[in-house]
């Protein structure tokens, strides 16, 4: 009791306690204000403190390139993002709690849509500043989808699959072939078969097609390797990764090792954002159902699961195909974001990246996958100026996480949307 009181007396304690009172809605509004502020005075402030332009990734790149500008970059980040966001979130905590409570009374989909709309607004405004930000953001969302779908296999199901970049490649090429074949005039496939205007509307079909191609690939791995447990899947899936890569390199009609270009610009930020949200929603639905939790039962004790009426083989194969499907969809988006794919992208390095994201963020957890995907892809962008040292720092971080939290930063935690958007006005009501 004494300690609790003391904590409240110190400035830090009071600050933390007052910030905890804001609901998620308040934080989103605070961030909206911050990105609006950047739009209004960002450039002026940046030039005033001696920065050449608005820092694109929270000043990391500037700080690493010219250490002399560290104070200015820090000042910029503090005065544009951190202080306004915290201040606004704190100041409007009463009205935002009131609003959150109002929203909370509606069916759950209404407050969720409001929160997502606000989140999209923030991301859109933030990405609007530079094309680089837009690209990074879209690739980050794709990385989240990849991480989450691999987590389904390596975390929830407890197998070790190495073929995820292979599924991504299948999806990328599947979706690319679909949209180039039907909607783009190209030297590989000739004239477009359907009017180009239709293309953007049919993009979801292309993505689903890419996903299905990937899950067919997954079926080919799953049938031989799920008869037994153990390391077989790791070896077979690694082989599959190489097979896919060299198969694509030898397929002349998709460009072989030179790659394939000409994908129309369908994967804009709203599209990628929407697909990522749908992906998280469906996967989260799945893992919270008893059918999805059967994956955990299979992982923890397969014999007991079987004795408790769980059809373990079907469960494993379906989950594997489901994970591969989302990797394929992520690949389709990836191809349309870059508007160019080549087989070299989907190699061992990609595999290492995705695996790192899964194990860094946390096994068996949607939060963990989001955290892992976002933090590692932003980090690897931010540390780009360090060149070779980047590949020392990121693995080092991973090793540290493995030492102190062997299952990842946020592992084994359910992603409960209701708890996330709950108003925070009555601390005594919280458990």
């Amino acid at each position, binding site marked *: 009791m004494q300690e609790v009181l003391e904590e409240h007396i110190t400035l830090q304690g009071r600050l933390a306690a007052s910030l905890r009172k804001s609901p998620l809605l308040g934080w989103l509004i605070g961030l909206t204000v911050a990105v609006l502020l950047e739009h209004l005075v960002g450039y002026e402030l940046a030039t005033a403190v001696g920065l050449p332009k608005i820092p694109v990734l929270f000043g990391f790149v500037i700080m690493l390139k010219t250490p002399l500008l560290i104070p200015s970059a820090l000042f910029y980040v503090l005065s544009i993002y951190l202080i306004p966001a915290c201040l606004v979130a704190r100041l409007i905590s009463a009205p935002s709690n009131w609003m959150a409570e109002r929203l909370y009374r509606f069916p759950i989909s209404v407050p969720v849509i409001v929160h997502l709309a606000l989140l999209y607004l923030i991301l859109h405004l933030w990405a609007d500043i530079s094309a680089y930000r837009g690209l990074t953001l879209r690739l980050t969302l794709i990385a989240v989808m990849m991480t989450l779908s691999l987590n389904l296999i390596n975390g929830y199901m407890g197998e070790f699959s190495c073929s995820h970049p292979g599924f991504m490649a299948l999806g990328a090429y599947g979706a690319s072939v679909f949209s180039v074949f039907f909607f783009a005039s190209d030297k590989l496939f000739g004239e477009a078969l359907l009017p180009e205007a239709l293309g953007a509307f049919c993009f979801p079909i292309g993505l689903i097609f890419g996903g299905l191609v990937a899950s067919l690939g997954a079926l080919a791995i799953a049938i031989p390797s799920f008869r037994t447990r153990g390391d077989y899947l790791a070896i077979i899936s690694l082989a599959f990764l190489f097979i896919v890569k060299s198969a694509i390199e030898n397929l002349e009609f998709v460009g072989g090792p030179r790659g394939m270009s000409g994908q129309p610009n369908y994967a804009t930020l709203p599209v990628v954002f929407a697909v990522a949200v749908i992906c998280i929603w469906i996967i989260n639905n799945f893992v919270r*159902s*008893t*059918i999805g939790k059967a994956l955990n*039962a299979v992982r*923890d004790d397969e014999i007991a699961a*079987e004795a*408790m009426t769980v*059809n373990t083989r079907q469960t494993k194969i379906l989950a594997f195909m489901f994970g591969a499907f989302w990797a394929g969809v992520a690949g389709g988006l990836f191809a349309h974001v870059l508007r160019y794919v080549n087989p070299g992208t989907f190699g061992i390095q990609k595999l290492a990246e995705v695996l790192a994201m899964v194990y860094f963020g946390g096994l068996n957890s949607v939060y963990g996958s989001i955290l892992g995907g976002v933090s590692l892809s932003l980090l690897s962008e931010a540390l780009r100026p360090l060149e070779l040292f980047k590949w020392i720092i990121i693995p080092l971080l991973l090793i540290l996480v493995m030492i102190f939290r062997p299952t990842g930063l946020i592992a084994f935690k359910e992603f409960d949307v209701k708890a996330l958007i709950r108003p925070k006005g009555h601390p005594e009501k919280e458990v």
Partner: protein
Amino acid sequence: MSLLEVVHMSHDFGGLRAVNDYSLAVSPGEIRGLIGPNGAGKTTIFNLITGMYRPTEGDIRFNGESIVGMRPHEIAARGLGRTFQNLQLWRHLTVLEHVMMARYSKLTYGLVGAFFGTPKRHRQEAQSRQRAEELMKLLNVSQFSDQLVLNLPYGAQRRVEMARALATEPKVLFLDEPTAGMNPEELWQMMKIIRKVHEEFKLAIFLIEHRLRMVMELCDKVQTLVFGEVIAEGTPEEIQNNPQVIEAYLGKETVE
């Protein structure tokens, strides 16, 4: 007619005959016991009947239908529930999730329900949850509902396993040494629970036990297994006084 019938079942592990010419007939509502020294093949018989292994010879019929060659989950869904000798619980699932998981075969909402959270899924999950809560209450583990099983006392873990097996809605319940590693107090509790479960659900129970006292108190009929062969079968009194059984348990010298 018997509910469960095992006819001349034998099983070989490589060259070793683990179970030889084993037969059994269980009627509805009966409590049967299987005793025998370590390594006699008791658990192997359980694994054979529940489909974990496939018998080399012989037939197993449940409700008149042969279940040899079916996958364990199909057999379990038909009404053969079981517990394990060494607790086989899922370390990352809570008690409630354990009991709900065992109702897997009763869920019909399918993948569409799992992906999109349809009303049908919510209805079925709610039903399943209600049933699970009743079972947890019956077995006195509802206070642990949201805890991971790892954090529970040993006796409670045993009861969770029992609740989980009951959630599959078995017609015959196989209990593999339900009192292994228990102290006398827990043992007594477990006996009470088995009786309660038996009365409540009108189950047939097939029990493997080491402790003769427990078998003698609970069972209607007992088989004694030594080296994969049944050497005696009968009521507890008959078994207790059978010289062959005493020899198998205590050795020859003590027989007068």
